[in-house]
């Protein structure tokens, strides 16, 4: 070895940074803005027919006109009524069935095969049957939405109840907790995160079923409105309806997220 060998400096690179990188929130807004701008330019340049793809400004104008003459409001009220009623009934029933089948061994044996057999049926296929049974009115549509909401909520509640830590049950039993106390203070809180995951799944399903039902059998409603303007080939109004739907879904999700943060404060 020579006494003075040449050496260099090696800086240890920060190797996790590409996995932990974060970007500010406005990036999303800017990117969506760019996309809309591109869309607008393509339409203005006349590259596609506005019948097939109306420009964003055109859609927005159509939306404002429809809001102003009360058309959107009317449809929205009808749709909200159906989805709200269907969602509340379906999720309450799903919650009850999930809790009972999850805790009682007998109910599990009786109910679970039934739930598992009915779950994969596309609920929209049942609409003609429901119309036959319940008439063409609101009840058949609400029932179908409730069915669509029921299954994800019931199944998620069931697994949330099933995976409760036996140690926590043991703790509760060691303090002589009653059955009701164990259900309310241990089993239900333990299942809450799963229940909310089920509710969010159900929110998507309910919107889907709402539009499908309104397209098949309704005079008013967002689904009926979209179908109506589709038949007339008035695409800007059709797209305005789609935007209302997308906003509806977004608000629905935000509402559930807000409720979840309130109900599950121990998971930041």
């Amino acid at each position, binding site marked *: 070895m020579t006494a003075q060998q040449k050496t260099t400096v090696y800086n240890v690179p920060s190797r996790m940074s590409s996995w932990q990188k974060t970007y500010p929130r406005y990036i999303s807004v800017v990117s969506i803005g760019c996309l809309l701008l591109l869309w607008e330019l393509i339409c203005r340049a006349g590259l596609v027919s506005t019948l097939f793809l109306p420009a964003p400004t055109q859609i927005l104008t159509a939306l404002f006109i429809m809001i102003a003459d009360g058309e959107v409001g009317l449809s929205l009220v009808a749709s909200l009524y159906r989805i709200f009623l269907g969602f509340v009934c379906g999720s309450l029933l799903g919650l009850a069935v999930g809790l009972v089948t999850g805790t009682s061994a007998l109910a599990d044996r009786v109910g679970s095969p039934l739930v598992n057999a009915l779950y994969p049926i596309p609920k929209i296929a049942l609409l003609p049957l429901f119309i036959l049974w319940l008439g063409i009115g609101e009840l058949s549509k609400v029932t179908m939405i409730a069915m669509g909401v029921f299954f994800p909520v019931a199944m998620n509640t069931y697994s949330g109840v099933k995976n409760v830590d036996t140690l926590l049950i*043991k703790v509760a039993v*060691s303090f*002589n907790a009653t059955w009701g*106390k164990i259900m309310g*203070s*241990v089993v239900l809180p333990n299942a809450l995160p799963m229940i909310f995951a089920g509710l969010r799944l159900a929110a998507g399903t309910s919107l889907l079923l709402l539009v499908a039902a309104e397209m098949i059998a309704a005079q008013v409603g967002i689904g009926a409105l979209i179908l109506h303007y589709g038949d007339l080939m008035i695409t800007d109004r059709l797209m305005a309806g789609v935007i209302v739907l997308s906003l509806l879904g977004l608000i629905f999700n935000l509402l559930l997220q807000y409720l979840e943060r309130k109900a599950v404060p*121990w998971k930041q």
Partner: protein
Amino acid sequence: MKLTIEAVSKTFVNQRGKSLSVLEDIDLTVNEEEFVALVGPSGCGKSTLLNITAGLLEPTSGSVRFLDVAPGCVPRHAIVFQETGLFPWRSVEDNIAFGLECLGMEKAEKKERVKHFIELVGLRGFETSFPHQLSGGMRQRVGIARALAIEPDLLLMDEPFSALDAQTRTIMQEELVTLWEKTRLSTLYVTHNIQEAVMLADRVVLLSRRPGKVSKIVTIDIPRSERELPCYAETIAEFIREIWEHIAKDARAALLEVEE
């Protein structure tokens, strides 16, 4: 009031029908205001015995009972579990209040009691924290406060400090001594740490390796609060050596069994 465990045996039968004898013919008494430590190698059935004592597990044979019970009084157990068992969805104060809720205590009294025990275990300022926001030692203290809050007739503790680091553990041991002197609850304390058993207990009960049997009972006749003093260091060391020699053979055999 005192607790007696009479001729308790426990055999587990697994799904394939193979049976495993875990406890054999255990006789044990915990007298009023006595601190009994249960020491034994890993897997000898300490947790099983504790669960049986608390009525959370059925013994295959034998019985557990309280003697000299005042008429009309239902003895209460409280357990501090090996894995804390705090409710993740309850804040510190609500965790401590759980046992009181089960007793149907009214609101004002409950609040008062919870406050007292939060102060006793030194958790003031953390009342509304959730368990995941606490350190391991703090969590264990919540578990202890929750057990003490119902003012039990018998306190059962299953290696409450086993998940803690050595320093915290020593501090918690000292705290437990002070706490215990304040409450003087009849206590059955499970540990595999001999030094801990000698520092805390009036009597140390040694369990042999599977099937667990009581193989020796050592009475530690030094006042608890003076065991830290240098003048007793030698006597303490002698107790530890005596117990260690008694169970070393068992412990080595247990290790070999695991390695097989």
